[in-house]
């Protein structure tokens, strides 16, 4: 899978699944932190659950829970890398 393509699809998924109204996929910075108040997108734990579920639905890739998830959910780049790696290993 092409990482750029995955990043684009991921951002589209985030806008619809997390109801990021008023935001376009292109508004999301690939390197910015996804979670945490006042930083980057400012998503929270409920968004993480929704995003993990929809990533599995869309890409067929499971996002692990717990500490491992923290680094995978760090940014669009990190999450896209996880998806590309998991797809390559499958």
């Amino acid at each position, binding site marked *: 899978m092409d990482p750029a393509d995955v990043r684009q699809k991921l951002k589209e998924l985030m806008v619809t699944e*997390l*109801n990021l*109204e008023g935001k376009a996929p292109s508004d999301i910075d690939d390197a910015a932190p996804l979670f945490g108040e006042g930083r980057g997108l400012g998503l929270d734990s*409920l*968004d993480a*659950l*929704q995003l993990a*579920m929809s990533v599995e*639905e869309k890409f067929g890739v499971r996002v692990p829970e717990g500490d491992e998830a923290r680094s995978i959910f760090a940014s669009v780049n990190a999450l896209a890398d996880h998806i590309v790696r998991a797809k390559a290993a499958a």
Partner: protein
Amino acid sequence: MRIWVTGIGVVSPLGRGAGVTMDRLLAGDRAFGELSLFHLPDMRTRLAAEAPGISAAEVAPEGDAEAWSRTDAMSVLAVREALVQAGVAPAAAPIDLIVGGTTAGMYETEDLLAELSRDADAIKPLRAMLTHPLSSTADHVRAAVGPFRRVRSLCSACSSGANALLLAAAWIRAGVSHCVVAGGADGLCRLTYTGFGALSAVDPNPCRPFDKRRAGLNLGEGAAFLVLEPEDTSRARGVTRPIAELVGWGVGAEAHHITNPEREGRTAARVMRAALAKARLSPADIDHVNAHGTATPLNDSMEAAAIRACFGPEVERVLVSSVKGQIGHTLGAAGAIEAAVSVMTIARGEIPPTQGLEEVDPACPLAHATRATKADVRAVMSNSFGFGGTDTSLVFAAPGVFPAPEAPPRRAVVVVSAATIGPLGVLGARENDAYLKPGPAPAPGPIAFQAADHLDVGRARRLDRAGRLSAVAIQRALRDAGLDPLDPSIGADVGAILGAAFGSVDGSTAFMRRIYEKGVKFASPADFPNLVPSSPVGHASIYLGLRGPVFAVADLGVTAECAVVTAADLIAVGEGEVLAAGSVEEASPMIERCLGPICSGEARGVRSEGASAILLEAEEHAKARGIRPLARLPWWTSWRGAGAGVFKDAPAPSQRSAVLTGQEDLPPGLHLPEAWARVPHRAVAPRAGVHEGAGGFALAAALAAIARGELDAALVVGHAPERGYALLLTAERSPDDSGSS
């Protein structure tokens, strides 16, 4: 005035009956087992605490079981038990009924909803859907047990059962009730089971409240009801001693997050302190806390922090336990079951343990009761916290131990604002008389609504359509009244009671359909919290910063009137200062073609949708902030049955008065006093459209007509099958400014 608890009834996963439930709690029994009610492919866990042997057929009239639910059955059994113990019966004396819950007949209807969503042509009035609305439980208890006088159904998610008891206490203190049976009931269902699973909130093993390794809750089911009476009424019928007394209560909203509690437990502590203040007790008087203790990582540390903040140094002494390690989280029933357990803890002098707690989490440093403990228990605090951050705390005490509290003086209630969002857009306090003016009927179906025109959609992204409509209506009502709840000095004084007749029926349908089509692991965590009936008002409280009482009510086609009457009841006895009350109804084929006709009757007119928020305030509170009310609310009432004699104490009309209704003409059995029968009668439905919340539009129209000087008084009457409400709005005018707007 002391409030006596004279009867308790419980159906729990540990058995039928309050006594057996308490025996087994004290014995340390755990009720978890393999789920038998339903099976869904790919379920990650199958553990649950089922109430064994419960079926709708046990309490339904012969041949009508398809229209009854397991929640009904548990409620009927628990209510009967409580009434028998108290020695009262609704056929012999006026008894009121309050049922808290979240799912009602979801278990019985969720499959059918998913099925109907695949074939819209199959949507028709189906008797099996009668048990879907939240109000069906109370209706069925009334049908099975007897003619309860005043009836309410309310939901504040997992604090529903506790808030039912709080409303009962308010009624008794106001002197409007002399006997109330109040509690909560919730049956297990696929929707809550998969929903909590999607939130990763479920421990696949028996849960461990306050334990370092706790990994979530287990779901249970059950029902509990308490009979509450004022001491004098109870004594007058020969009762010499209650089981316990309900002495204190506190309620408030966190305005924080739809699923996650405030980390530091600020609101929970505020509500616990309010309950103590109401009881005029100090932490030193409390011997036990029956904790909410769900065993989710966030709840237990939040609650521990709140208990520590409330109890100070006494926290080293006060034993804390959670029954959820034995019966699981029974959702809308939990607050009532735990209230019943608290009462029995006092009566028996024995504190139940927290089962599953082995290694106390350092983040939960409390005096945990890990085994049943005999003690002289003078008073117990019972905590309940719900989705959306709706926190309630109750305090029960041993009979006669503490001084009797004074009944509060009855306070005047005024109307300071109202707003609607409907076919004519968003209308404020002085604009809603537009719904009384001639004009075209609305277009059928959904109203035009651009959220971004009214809300910061970034902040409102979690709000579904019902949540947004609710937030817009309440926001406009608050603005017109000069209130900004984000102002920290005012937010805790502002609450909201907003209902929907059928809840989030389309949302529940979509959620279930997704599970069947994609599998349990694709259940949407973000959508699930929006399916609880208190979600729209909960979301609105978070968006707007409302930190007073926040809950939903449901009463078919009079849900808005029910909300406003309930708000007025609370303000009159000091349980709220400013409350936005109304309803939100959405256009939906399932409502239009199935739930509406089967529950409310065929609609005569164009079906539409909308939300209303009527802003009530204690007169003294409005005065203190220098606000001139737009109208007074001197009289209100509600009834079950045909409504014979309900207007006997209604004030007479003034010079320019009108009777206003939402949906249609008054039913033939309802007789207005002659003076009111002579004044003009007008309905808003021709302009607002027909829906279960039309009464809220009638109330808003009444306020605008009075505010603009077109009317001096308006009697707003709402009715639905077997029930109704009436409220009188009168002009708040000094003699020298007669009627100009």
